[in-house]
C-alpha cells in the first residue's frame, strides 16, 4: 500500500491550498477578457486607496520574459483570453476581488486568430506582433554543448497549399521548419500495391487537473518556502529558484500531494513567480488561488493537429512508405507535438521509408503544453481507423495488419530510427486478441434493430524512461531503511513503486522502510520530472544503484569488522554476513552504527563527484546519521525504453441517436515487469478513460467571431464521467522484463490513453461500416450528421479545429 493512500481517503493529506500561514494574504489575478490586444494603460489608483489592499504586481515587478516566453503577467501584448495582466494582494480574497473590479485597464483590440491555417494564409492574422510560428533551434556551441533557443517567425504559405491541405491533399510549396526522412520514399510508394491518402484533424483540450494550480509562498531567514502543485519534486528546484532569483539551496519546495497534472504541471509553471516574488516584495505569506475558470485559461492544453498522411502498403500488409504533414495548433505558447505524432507512426508501422514535415503555429487560444502522450495519443486516435481502412482494402484482418507492422525488440523509433531497449508489441496483440475474444467478436452479428455493434483495436505508445539520475538511501542505527525520493506525487504512486527497487535490492521488509519525499528539506536527490511515463524506469534504476552502493559499503564494513574481504560477504534478512558462515555477520543496525563511526563515504561525509548538486545538498543534510548509499545511475545500455499498449474495444451504437455505449474494453501493456499489480490496473483504467475523452468527448470550442472560449467549465469540457465509460474492463500485461532496468519495468502511463482512444475510434468506424471521420474527437453530433447524410460536421477536408 502506498503510504499516502490513507491520507487521501480521510482528507488529511494536504494540497497547496490547504496550507495557511500566520499573516497570510491573498492574491487574485486580473485577466484579459479578449484574445489579442495591447495593454495601453493601467489605472489602479482607486484600488490602491482601498483599505486592506496590500499591493499590486505587474509584469514590471518580474524578470522580463520576452516572446516566445510564456510570461506570468502580460507586459504589453495580450495573446489569449484569461491571460493574467496583474495581481492584487489584500487581506482577504473578497477585498482583492473588489480591488480588481476598481482597476481600469485600457486594452487596444488587435486582430486575433484561432485557426492555424488561417494564420498561414497570405495576409492572415498572426497571434503575436512578431509573427505566427514558433521556431526551435539547436546549435552546437563551444565544447560540443547544444544550445537550444526559440524565436517567433512569420511564415506564410501560398494559398494553393492551404487549399490543398483543406481538401485533403499534399500542401505543395508549403514551408516546414521541422522535417525528417529516412529510407527511399519514392521507391517505397513504387513498391506499394495499395496507397491511401487521408486528411485528419484533432482538437486540443484542457487538462483540467482537478486541483487548480494554487500556490503559497513565504520567506524566512532568506529562504523561500513554497507550497505548489506540481507533478515533480526535485526537478522543480532549479527552475523555481531561477524564477525567484535565488540560489536553489535557499528554496524549500513543499508538495506532498498534487491533485492531478497529466503533463500540465511537469515543471514550475509561470504563475509560481507571482506568489513567490509577491511574498518577498510584501514580506508576507501570499496565497495565489487559481479558480477552475483560470485553470482552463492558464492550465495548459493539448495541441491540435491539421494534417495529411499518405501510406503505401505491400501485398503482405507491410507498410513500405509514409508521407506525413502536420500543422500544430500551438495556442499562445506556440509549441506542438508533431514530431511525437510522427514517432507514434514509426512504432505502429515500422515503415521502410518515411518523411515527416511539421509546422507549429501560434493561435490566440490557451497556452499549450504536454498532455498525456502529447502527439502520440491524438495520432493514435486518428491513425487507427485509417489503419483499418488499409487493412480492409487488402483483405487483411485488422489485428493481423498491426501485427505485421508493430515494433519489436529489433525495431526503432522516430526519425533518427533510434534503438529500443526491448519491445513486444506482437505478443501484446496476441494476448489482447485472446483476452478480448477478437475472433469471436468480429464474427458476431452486427445489427440488432436500430443498434449496431462495432469492435476496434488500437495501439498506444510513448517513450518511457530516462537515465543518469541519482538515488539516495540511508540505513539508520535502528536498522530502518530510509529511501530518499525526489520523485513527485501526481497520483501515480511511482515514488513508492520505485522506492521498492531499493528495498528489494537490500532485502529489507517494506514495513521497515521509510520513504522521505514531498519537501526539499527532507533531503531529496536529483530526480527527473514526472512526465513522459519515465519514472518507473528512470528511478527504479536510480534507487537500485543507490542500494548497490549501500550493499558494497555494508560488505566493506563487515570485512573491516570481521576480517576477510568484502567479496566473502553477502546480505539477507537485514544482515550482512560471511557466505561461508552466516553466524558471522552484522545486523544492518550494527553496520549503520559502524558507518557513523567510520565516517567518510560510509556515512555520507564524502560522496561521489558526479552526483548532481541537488543530491550533494541532500547528502549533506543526512551525513553522519547512518550508512549512506548514494550513486548516479550509470547502468550501461542504450536505446529508448518504449511503453507500448494495445487496446480492444466493443461498442453498441444507437443509429437513431448517434450515441454509443462502450460494452467492454480489454488492454494489454508491454511495459516490462509489472511492479505493483493493483496500481498497474488503476493506471490502465485511468488512461482508458482518458482515451474515451480524447476519442469522443473533449475539445476546445472557440467562437470564431470574437475568439472567446465557449466551454470553460468542466461541464462543457466534458471529461468522461461514471456514465460515459465501460466498467467492464480487463487489464493485463505481457510482463517480460526489460533488460535495461534491474527491476525490469518500463513506464506505461501515457500509452494507456492512446491505446484506448485508438481502439474506440476504430470501433466507431467499424460500427459505421468503416466510415473514417479522420477527427478526434468524433462527437455524437458528427455521428448523427453522418447517419443523416449531412456533411456539415463530418466533412474532414475543411480541417476545422477549435471551432465546429
Amino acid at each position, binding site marked *: 500500500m502506498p503510504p499516502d493512500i490513507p491520507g487521501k481517503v480521510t482528507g488529511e493529506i494536504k494540497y497547496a491550498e490547504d496550507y495557511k500561514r500566520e499573516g497570510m494574504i491573498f492574491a487574485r489575478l486580473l485577466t484579459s*477578457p479578449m484574445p489579442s490586444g495591447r495593454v495601453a494603460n493601467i489605472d489602479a489608483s482607486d484600488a490602491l486607496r482601498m483599505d486592506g489592499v496590500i499591493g499590486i504586481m505587474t509584469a514590471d515587478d518580474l524578470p522580463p520574459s520576452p516572446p516566445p516566453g510564456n510570461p506570468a503577467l502580460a507586459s504589453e501584448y495580450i495573446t489569449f483570453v484569461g491571460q493574467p495582466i496583474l495581481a492584487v494582494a489584500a487581506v482577504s480574497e473578497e477585498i482583492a476581488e473588489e480591488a480588481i473590479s476598481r482597476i481600469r485597464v485600457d486594452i487596444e483590440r488587435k486582430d486575433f486568430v484561432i485557426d492555424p491555417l488561417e494564420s498561414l494564409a497570405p495576409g492572415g492574422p498572426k497571434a503575436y506582433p512578431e509573427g505566427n510560428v514558433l521556431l526551435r533551434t539547436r546549435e552546437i556551441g563551444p565544447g560540443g554543448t547544444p544550445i537550444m533557443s526559440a524565436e517567433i517567425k512569420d511564415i506564410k504559405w501560398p494559398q494553393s497549399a492551404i487549399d490543398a491541405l483543406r481538401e485533403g491533399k499534399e500542401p505543395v510549396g508549403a514551408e516546414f521548419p521541422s522535417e525528417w526522412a529516412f529510407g527511399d520514399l519514392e521507391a517505397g510508394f513504387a513498391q506499394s500495391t495499395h496507397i491511401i491518402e487521408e486528411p485528419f484533424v484533432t482538437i486540443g483540450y484542457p487538462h483540467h487537473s482537478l486541483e487548480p494550480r494554487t500556490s503559497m509562498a513565504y520567506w524566512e531567514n532568506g529562504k523561500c518556502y513554497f507550497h505548489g502543485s506540481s507533478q515533480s519534486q526535485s526537478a522543480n528546484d532549479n527552475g523555481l529558484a531561477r524564477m525567484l532569483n535565488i540560489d536553489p539551496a535557499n528554496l524549500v519546495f513543499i508538495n506532498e500531494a498534487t491533485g492531478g497534472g497529466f503533463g500540465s504541471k511537469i515543471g514550475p509553471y509561470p504563475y509560481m513567480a507571482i506568489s513567490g516574488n509577491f511574498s518577498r516584495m510584501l514580506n508576507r505569506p501570499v496565497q495565489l488561488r487559481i479558480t477552475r*475558470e483560470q485553470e482552463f485559461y492558464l492550465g495548459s492544453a493539448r495541441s491540435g493537429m491539421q494534417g495529411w498522411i499518405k501510406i503505401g502498403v505491400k501485398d503482405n500488409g507491410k507498410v513500405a512508405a509514409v508521407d506525413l504533414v502536420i500543422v500544430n495548433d500551438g495556442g499562445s505558447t506556440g509549441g506542438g507535438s508533431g514530431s511525437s505524432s510522427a514517432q507514434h507512426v514509426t512504432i505502429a508501422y515500422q515503415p521502410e521509408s518515411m518523411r515527416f514535415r511539421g509546422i507549429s503555429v501560434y493561435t490566440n487560444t490557451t497556452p499549450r503544453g504536454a498532455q498525456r502522450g502529447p502527439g502520440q495519443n491524438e495520432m493514435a486516435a486518428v491513425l487507427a481507423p485509417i489503419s483499418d481502412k488499409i487493412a480492409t482494402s487488402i483483405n487483411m484482418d485488422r489485428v493481423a495488419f498491426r501485427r505485421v507492422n508493430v515494433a519489436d525488440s529489433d525495431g526503432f523509433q522516430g526519425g533518427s530510427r533510434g534503438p529500443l531497449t526491448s519491445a513486444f508489441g506482437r505478443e501484446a496483440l496476441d494476448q489482447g486478441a485472446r483476452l478480448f475474444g477478437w475472433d469471436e467478436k468480429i464474427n458476431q452479428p452486427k445489427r440488432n434493430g436500430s443498434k449496431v455493434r462495432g469492435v476496434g483495436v488500437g495501439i498506444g505508445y510513448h517513450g518511457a524512461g530516462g537515465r543518469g539520475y541519482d538515488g539516495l538511501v540511508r540505513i539508520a542505527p535502528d536498522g530502518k531503511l530510509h529511501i530518499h525520493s525526489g520523485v513527485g506525487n501526481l497520483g501515480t504512486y511511482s515514488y513508492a513503486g520505485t522506492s521498492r527497487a531499493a528495498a528489494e535490492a537490500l532485502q529489507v521488509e517494506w514495513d521497515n522502510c521509510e520513504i522521505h519525499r514531498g519537501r526539499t528539506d527532507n533531503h531529496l536527490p536529483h530526480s527527473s520530472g514526472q512526465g513522459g511515463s519515465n519514472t518507473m524506469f528512470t528511478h527504479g534504476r536510480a534507487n537500485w544503484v543507490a542500494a548497490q552502493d549501500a550493499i558494497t559499503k555494508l560488505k566493506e564494513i563487515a570485512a573491516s569488522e570481521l576480517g576477510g574481504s568484502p567479496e566473502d560477504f553477502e546480505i539477507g534478512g537485514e544482515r550482512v554476513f560471511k557466505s561461508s558462515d552466516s553466524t558471522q555477520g552484522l545486523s544492518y543496525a550494527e553496520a549503520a552504527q559502524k558507518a557513523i563511526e567510520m565516517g567518510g563515504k560510509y556515512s555520507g561525509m564524502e560522496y561521489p563527484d558526479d552526483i548532481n548538486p541537488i543530491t550533494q545538498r541532500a547528502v549533506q543534510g543526512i551525513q553522519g546519521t547512518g550508512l549512506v548509499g548514494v550513486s548516479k545511475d550509470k547502468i550501461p545500455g542504450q536505446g529508448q525504453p518504449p511503453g507500448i499498449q494495445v487496446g480492444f474495444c466493443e461498442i453498441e451504437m444507437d443509429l437513431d441517436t448517434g450515441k454509443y455505449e462502450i460494452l467492454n474494453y480489454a488492454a494489454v501493456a508491454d511495459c516490462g515487469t509489472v511492479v505493483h499489480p493493483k496500481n498497474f*490496473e488503476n493506471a490502465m483504467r485511468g488512461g482508458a478513460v482518458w482515451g474515451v475523452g480524447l476519442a469522443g468527448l473533449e475539445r476546445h470550442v472557440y467562437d470564431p467571431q470574437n475568439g472567446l472560449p465557449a466551454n*470553460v467549465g468542466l461541464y462543457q469540457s466534458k471529461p468522461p464521467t461514471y456514465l460515459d465509460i465501460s466498467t467492464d474492463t480487463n487489464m493485463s500485461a505481457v510482463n517480460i522484463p526489460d533488460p535495461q532496468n534491474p527491476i525490469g519495468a518500463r513506464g506505461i502511463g501515457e500509452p494507456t490513453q492512446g491505446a484506448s482512444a485508438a481502439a474506440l475510434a476504430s470501433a466507431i468506424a467499424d460500427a459505421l461500416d468503416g466510415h473514417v471521420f479522420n477527427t478526434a474527437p468524433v462527437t455524437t453530433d458528427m455521428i448523427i450528421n453522418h447517419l443523416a447524410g449531412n456533411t456539415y460536421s463530418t466533412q474532414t477536408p475543411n480541417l476545422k479545429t477549435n471551432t465546429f
Partner: protein
Amino acid sequence: MNSRLTRRRFIKGVIFSGAAASTGASFYLANAQSGQSSAERLVTLNINGRNRPVDVLPQETLAHTLRYKLDLTGTKLGCNRGECGACTVLIDEVPNYSCSVLTHNVKGKTVTTIEGIKAADGTLHAVQQAFIDENSPQCGFCTPGQVMSAVALLRSNPRPTRKEALQAMSGNLYRCGAYEHYLNGVMRASGQLA
C-alpha cells in the same frame, strides 16, 4: 475597467454559461462581491456532531466556511461551481455540493464532512477501507467527495446494485479516471465483493 463594467461582464458570463466574456475573477466574485461592505453574522452550525459557532457572510458558501473558517480542509474545491463533486458533504444525510450551498441555509441541519467519517477510535469507515483495498484514489483530490457520496449511498441503500452505485456516484468527477476502482470500492464496502 470600473466596477460597473465588471458587474456587466459578470452578468454576461452567466448568460453564456461560463463563456469567457467575464474576467477570470468573476465566478469567485459570486461568493464575495459584497464582501467588503456586508457584515458577517455569527451562526452556530452542527458539523460532525459538534456545535461550531462561526462568523458568516450573507453570500458565503458552506465549502468556504468549512475550509477557510473551520479549517476542515478535507473538503476540496475542484470547481466551486457545482460541476465536479470534490466538495461533497452530507446535509441531513443527503449528499450536497458544499460549494453551491449557502452556509446560512444549513442552520439547524446536521452537516457531515470527510473529517466526520472515521469512527471516534480512528477506525476507518468501511468505504474508506474499501477505497484503500481497491487502490481507488490516484491524485486523491476527488477522493473525499467520492467517499461522501458512497457513504450517503450505503446509508440509504446498504446493498446497491452496480448500476445503482454508478448512478449514485455519477455526480463525482474523477479526472484521473479509474472510476471502476471507486465503483468496486463501493461494492466491497457493501459486502458484495469478496
